[in-house]
């Protein structure tokens, strides 16, 4: 079943065309990686999907609804972006993870703790000052923070960037595990081809602002990518 339909979108920023005639369909509960060289528009595409920006042309449908007809705040509770640049909110790790729930006016400790564990952090982190964590730990907190609002789709923008190569595979495994367990759909941006091969159900290649190829991971033609 398809969960996301991106249909012929186009986006121009400061007179430069970033995305053009881009179409992509994402299936429910799959991990779809989006690969492509730096500057090809991967981040811009994710930002269109959670409506931090709107495309100039084309439509994006979540289930059967045009996302323009869904109240933005509700959309962002279901389609959650974990940005490329990790930014910790002031306060503890707990404050960060509880942030989304707080906004909605509830607190579910079980979900908060589960999200922390799913992101590969142990309980001792909860009381730590989020700003003082290492880059890799911050990345994990930003994953946990997104999980804590029970999203349906996660948009991960280079989630393992800056993570120590020794734990890279562990983080990948954490993400795959929580995705399967929670029946999550993941659109995962990476420029690491090996990673794409390891984690994906399908791989989409983004080149000069448009999707040039979408294939099952095993069948992906790396020759035509990049």
């Amino acid at each position, binding site marked *: 079943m398809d969960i996301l339909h991106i249909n012929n979108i186009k986006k121009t920023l400061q007179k430069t065309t970033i995305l053009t005639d881009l179409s992509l369909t994402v299936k429910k509960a799959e991990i779809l990686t989006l690969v492509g060289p730096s500057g090809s528009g991967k981040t811009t595409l994710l930002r269109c999907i959670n409506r*931090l920006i709107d495309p100039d042309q084309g439509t994006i449908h979540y289930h059967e609804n045009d996302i323009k007809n869904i109240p933005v705040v509700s959309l*962002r509770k279901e389609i959650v972006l974990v940005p490329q640049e990790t930014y910790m*909110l002031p306060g503890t790790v707990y404050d960060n993870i509880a942030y989304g729930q707080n906004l909605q006016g509830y607190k579910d400790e079980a979900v908060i703790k589960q999200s922390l564990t799913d992101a590969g952090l142990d309980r001792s982190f909860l009381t730590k000052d989020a700003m003082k964590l290492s880059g890799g730990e911050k990345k994990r907190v930003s994953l946990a923070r997104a999980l804590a609002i029970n999203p349906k789709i996660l948009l991960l923008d280079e989630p393992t960037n800056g993570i120590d190569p020794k734990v890279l595979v562990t983080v990948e495994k954490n993400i795959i595990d929580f995705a399967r367990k929670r029946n999550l759909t993941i659109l995962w941006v990476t420029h690491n081809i090996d990673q794409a091969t390891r984690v994906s159900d399908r791989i989409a290649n983004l080149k000069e602002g448009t999707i040039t190829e979408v294939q099952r991971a095993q069948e992906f033609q790396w020759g035509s990518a990049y």
Partner: protein
Amino acid sequence: MGIPYTWQEGLVVLAFTCILLLIVILISVYKKLEIGKEFTYALIKGGGQLFIIALFLTILFQMQYWYILIWALFVTMILAAGHTSAKRATHMPQAYQVTTPAILSGATLSLIVLAISRAMPLEPQFIVPLAGMAFGNSMAICSVSMERLIREVSLNKSSIETMLSLGASSKQSLEPFSRYSIRASLIPTIDHLKTLGVIFIPGAMAGLLIAGTDPLVAAEYQIIVFLMIVGGGIITALITTTLSRKKLFTSNEQIQEWLYEL
């Protein structure tokens, strides 16, 4: 009482102070401060405006129907203040739509309270300078809070986007930055309040002292005026940050495009 010379004799005094000014300009040229041109322009503009207002007041104070003409003065004040403040709002489109109502509400509120409390007798000699102070102060506060708010948002786009992405409304994500901006805009006023009388004899009191009022009455009066002006300033800062939100964010909780282009 008051200043012991006529306006014609005053011109001589003015000429003397101009010599001092000339020295300042020479120093600024010598030191390459590059403020000579802007300073001269500001002086001519400011001086010219003062003379025009002096003529206007001369007429106003003698008029029987001054309360009609004074509205023209108010309108000029608010338009000029809104426009000046809006220029501080780098790149914000139609910023006067924020600054004008913000200054107007803050200043009007303090003037109304002053009038009701009878601290401002309804005579042009009181209304004109107090209105000038109220509008001037609200304008200064509006400019600082505007400038600061835009800078905060522009520098913290990724943190704001993080909050928006976790389901925050624009109001919620802007909240910490509104607070910084309001606080920053009130710092000069609060510092003035702390140093009142020590290094800073404020306008109203200076005026009263020069005119020969009992210092105690002058001090008391100054505090009344100051409190009203602080109150008006806080209102102005609050309205500035509130109204700015629509200029900083779209109705879809997105940061406005112009902020990405700064």
